[in-house]
C-alpha cells in the first residue's frame, strides 16, 4: 500500500523518470511560486479524477473509456480553474492559460488509464496523491533553480548578492530545457549511486 504512494515521489517520478506532462513543466516554472500553484492544481485534478475513475471502473465500456476519462478530467480542471479565479485571483492571473491546459496533461490521463481503471479506490487515491506530490516537488525544484539564476530570488526572496547579473536565458524557454535536462541527469547519477550502494551491501 505504502509503495503506491511513494513510487510517485521518487522511483516513478512523473517528471524525472516518466518525463510526462512537459508542457506545464517547461512553461510555468519561471518562478517557484508558479511551480507550486501549478503543482497543487494538478494534484487536485489528478486525485479527484483518479478516485472517480476508480469508482466507476466497472461500469465503463472499454471502447469509450478514453472519452469518458477525458470528460471527468475536464470537469475537475474547469472546477479548479473557477475556484482559483474566485479565491486566488492573482495566482490565477499569473498562471494564465496553463490552468485550463491541465486537461491535456498526460500524467492525469496516464494515471486514470494505467492505474485507477484497474485498482480499488484507496490504492488509486494513494497512487494519484504520490504522483501529484512528486509532480509538485519537481516543479518547485525547477522553478527555484530558474528563478534563482534568472531573477536572483526564490519564492520572491532575494538570495543573490546585489551585483549579481541575472541570467535572462534561464527564464526564457531555453532555460527550461537546460534546467530540466541537467536535473534529469543529476537524478540519474543519484539513482545509479544508490543502486551501487545497495549491491555492495549485498
Amino acid at each position, binding site marked *: 500500500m505504502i509503495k503506491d504512494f511513494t513510487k510517485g515521489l521518487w522511483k516513478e517520478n512523473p517528471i524525472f523518470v516518466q518525463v510526462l506532462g512537459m508542457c506545464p513543466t517547461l*512553461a*510555468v516554472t*519561471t*518562478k517557484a511560486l*508558479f511551480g507550486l500553484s501549478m503543482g497543487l492544481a494538478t494534484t487536485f485534478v489528478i486525485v479527484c479524477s483518479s478516485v472517480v475513475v476508480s469508482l466507476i471502473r466497472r*461500469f*465503463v*465500456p472499454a*471502447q*469509450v473509456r478514453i*472519452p*469518458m476519462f477525458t*470528460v*471527468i478530467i*475536464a*470537469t475537475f480542471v*474547469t*472546477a479548479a480553474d*473557477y*475556484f482559483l*479565479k*474566485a*479565491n486566488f*485571483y492573482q495566482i490565477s*492571473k*499569473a*498562471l*494564465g*492559460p496553463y490552468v485550463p491546459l491541465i486537461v491535456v496533461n498526460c500524467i492525469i490521463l496516464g494515471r486514470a488509464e494505467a492505474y485507477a481503471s484497474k485498482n480499488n479506490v484507496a490504492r488509486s487515491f494513494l497512487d494519484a496523491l504520490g504522483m501529484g506530490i512528486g509532480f509538485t516537488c519537481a516543479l518547485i525544484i525547477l522553478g527555484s533553480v*530558474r528563478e534563482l539564476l*534568472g*531573477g536572483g530570488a526564490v519564492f520572491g526572496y532575494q538570495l543573490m548578492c546585489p551585483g549579481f547579473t541575472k541570467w*535572462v536565458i534561464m*527564464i*526564457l524557454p531555453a532555460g527550461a530545457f537546460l534546467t530540466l535536462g541537467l536535473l534529469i541527469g543529476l537524478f540519474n547519477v543519484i539513482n545509479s549511486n544508490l543502486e551501487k550502494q545497495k549491491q555492495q551491501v549485498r
Partner: protein
Amino acid sequence: MKNDAIKMITALAVVGILSGISLVFVYNYATPKIKINVRNETHRAIGDIFPDGSDIEPMKGDEEMFSVKDKSGKLLGYAIIAEGNGYQGAIKMIAGVAGDFKTMKGMEVLDSQETPGLGAEIANKPFTGQFNGLEITHEIEYVKNKKPSEPYQIEAITGATISSRAVVNILNDSIDKARKAMKGNQ
C-alpha cells in the same frame, strides 16, 4: 453488438450530464465572486494611477471610460479601459490620462496571458512606471535596450519586445479613440 452500442451511449451520456450538472454548481458559486474580483481589480488599478481619486464614475453611455475626481470634486483625469491583442492572448489595461489629454497619469495591467516571467513583466512597476507623465500629444513609441530620449518614448522589456509593442499599440489606439469620443461629446 446493438447492446454494446446502447451501453456506450448510455455511459457517455450519463458522464456528460453529471459533468454538466456539477459544473453549473461550480459556475453559480464562482461567477459572482469572480465579478467582484474583477470590479475590485479595476477600482484598485484606478486608485493606483490616481492616488487622490475618491470619486470614480463611469462616463455616460460608455462602460470603458471612467472620470476620476478628488474629494473636492476637482477632475483629476480619465481612466480608460484599453484592450487588444498581445503575444499570447488579449491584454486588458487601464490607461490614466490627464483631463487635457496631453500626458498620461499612469498605466496598470488588469489581465494578460503573456509568458510568465517575460511578457508578464508588462504588469510590473519597472515597466508600468514609465507611463506616468508620458507625453501623448505625439504617438507613444518604444525603444530597445537603451534609455528613451524623447518624452513620448518608453523602453521595451528585454526578451519581450512583442508584448511591449502590443501595449504601446493598444494604448495609442484606445487613447486616440477616447480623445475623439471626448471631442464628439463637447
